[in-house]
């Protein structure tokens, strides 16, 4: 089971490279459309569309928990798709989400502004419009990566290979990734990744379900100790709250057993 993630700046031909790599390796390509199709199957389409690599408003970041729910669900969709194996992902923070899996290869495609403007103009866009679109896209993707993962989009250490398309052809980039993906060293990585992915996806769905059920307390923590088994720890003030949390977790797709370790704080009342 192998996964390749592509992160690209707009106007670098990164999408074309990803498509051609997927084609050459006979892997499934998960671009925006494919990710949304899976999100629809899982009932998370609105969440995934809301977490669309754009910067959030200050209001959204400070006064609602909705962004966290959207992100948790986007993450669970990425994990679900990756667990199917042999996949190429395009964007959506997949390089960071799948970083813990040593079977994943992370590729970044970049280029100078001049090259990117040139590429956009070749597609029929006016120069001024192209420059504005590129700056907007850079700002949004950078802010999304910062907000969602606390990471610097341009940090080379987040990727296994970074291509500068100023002087490289699409063919060369495609060939290089395919060559690397087929190497014995990379092929030897995978193994237990599938199981890990299922568990990571379940944990994210469980966290989102708790937030949506109104449990924002940082005193609650969720973990998936083995496939299908969700453990919840923390402190609550009433038995009914503890039961409601468990009920919310039982409704999560893939949950088979809830290990409810929440303790009741006797005599503690919510402040009025």
């Amino acid at each position, binding site marked *: 089971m192998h996964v390749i993630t592509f992160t690209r700046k707009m106007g670098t031909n990164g999408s074309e490279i990803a498509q051609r790599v997927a084609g050459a390796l006979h892997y499934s390509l998960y671009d925006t459309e494919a990710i949304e199709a899976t999100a629809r199957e899982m009932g998370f389409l609105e969440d995934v569309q809301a977490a669309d690599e754009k910067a959030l408003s200050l209001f959204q970041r400070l006064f609602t928990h909705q962004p966290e729910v959207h992100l948790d669900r986007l993450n669970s969709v990425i994990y679900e798709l990756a667990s199917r194996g042999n996949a190429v992902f395009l964007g959506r923070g997949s390089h960071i989400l799948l970083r813990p899996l*040593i079977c994943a*290869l992370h590729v*970044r495609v*970049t*280029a*100078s502004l001049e090259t990117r403007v040139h590429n956009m103009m070749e597609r029929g866009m006016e120069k001024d419009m192209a420059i504005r679109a590129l700056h907007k896209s850079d700002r949004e993707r950078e802010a999304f990566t910062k907000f969602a993962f606390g990471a610097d989009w*341009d940090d*080379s*250490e987040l*990727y*296994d*290979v*970074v*291509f*500068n398309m*100023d*002087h*490289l052809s699409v*063919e*060369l980039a495609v*060939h*290089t990734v395919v*060559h*690397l993906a087929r*190497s014995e*060293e*990379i092929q030897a*990585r995978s193994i237990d990744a599938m199981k890990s992915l299922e568990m990571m996806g379940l944990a994210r769905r469980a966290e989102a379900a708790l937030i949506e059920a109104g449990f924002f307390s940082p005193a609650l923590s969720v973990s998936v100790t083995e496939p299908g088994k969700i453990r919840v720890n923390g402190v609550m003030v009433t038995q009914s709250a503890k039961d409601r949390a468990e009920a919310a977790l039982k409704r999560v797709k893939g949950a088979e057993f809830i290990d409810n370790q929440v303790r009741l704080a006797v005599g503690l009342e919510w402040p009025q």
Partner: protein
Amino acid sequence: MDMWKNIGLSKCISFIESESRRTSKEVSGEEAVRPAITISRMTGAGGYAVASALVDYLQAHVPSCDKWTVFDHNLVEKVLDDHHIQKRIGDFMEEDHKSMLRDSVEEWLGLHPSWWTMVQKTNATILRLAQMGCVILVGRGAMVITGRLKNVFHARLVGSLEKRIEYGVRAYGVDRKKAIDFIKKTDEARKRYLKDNFDADADDALLYHVTINTDLVGHDEAASLIGDAVIRRFNLAGQRRASGSESRAVQR
């Protein structure tokens, strides 16, 4: 793998001697392009190991390009030799300079040329070596100096601090603390060298054709990735099975 087996002053001298025997036709540019490679690296990301493995890879896959030669530390020796400067000045030309005042005083006393002069001479040597081709230039801002040459491929090796510390401990047999100190000090020195002399940032991905993270991509794999990209970029594939001087014809 013995990462030092393709690296050393004797190999550089042998390369330079063989270059001096090239015919005027070859040197005048009628001969096809001979590629050169620059490798910029974070300390402990495997610069020497990758350079050495890259020599093996290219020698095996492009035999027509005679001998591939790595220039790293020995670049300084080459500069000193080129410019008839005393060997002991090599110590002064580490990839860093700490005190402009000390530099000025020593220059005034006639102990060595100014730092600026030495950097200029190093740059000129790097440029000349890159133009000759079939060289792998490690460090010293070679990617900036040769940035405009069409026959040069630029690679950068990066890695997480933790993995680089592990590599330092394993490859050089030093303890963890020494490895951390060395890595941090050398990284800072290299960044300063680039900033001071070229106003460039080593972390700028646009300075390179490809940046490879050796945390997960092994040294041999990184070498094969760079080697293969060079073969494709300069269309050297047709030469793979060729041999002898006739096989030097590289398609442009």
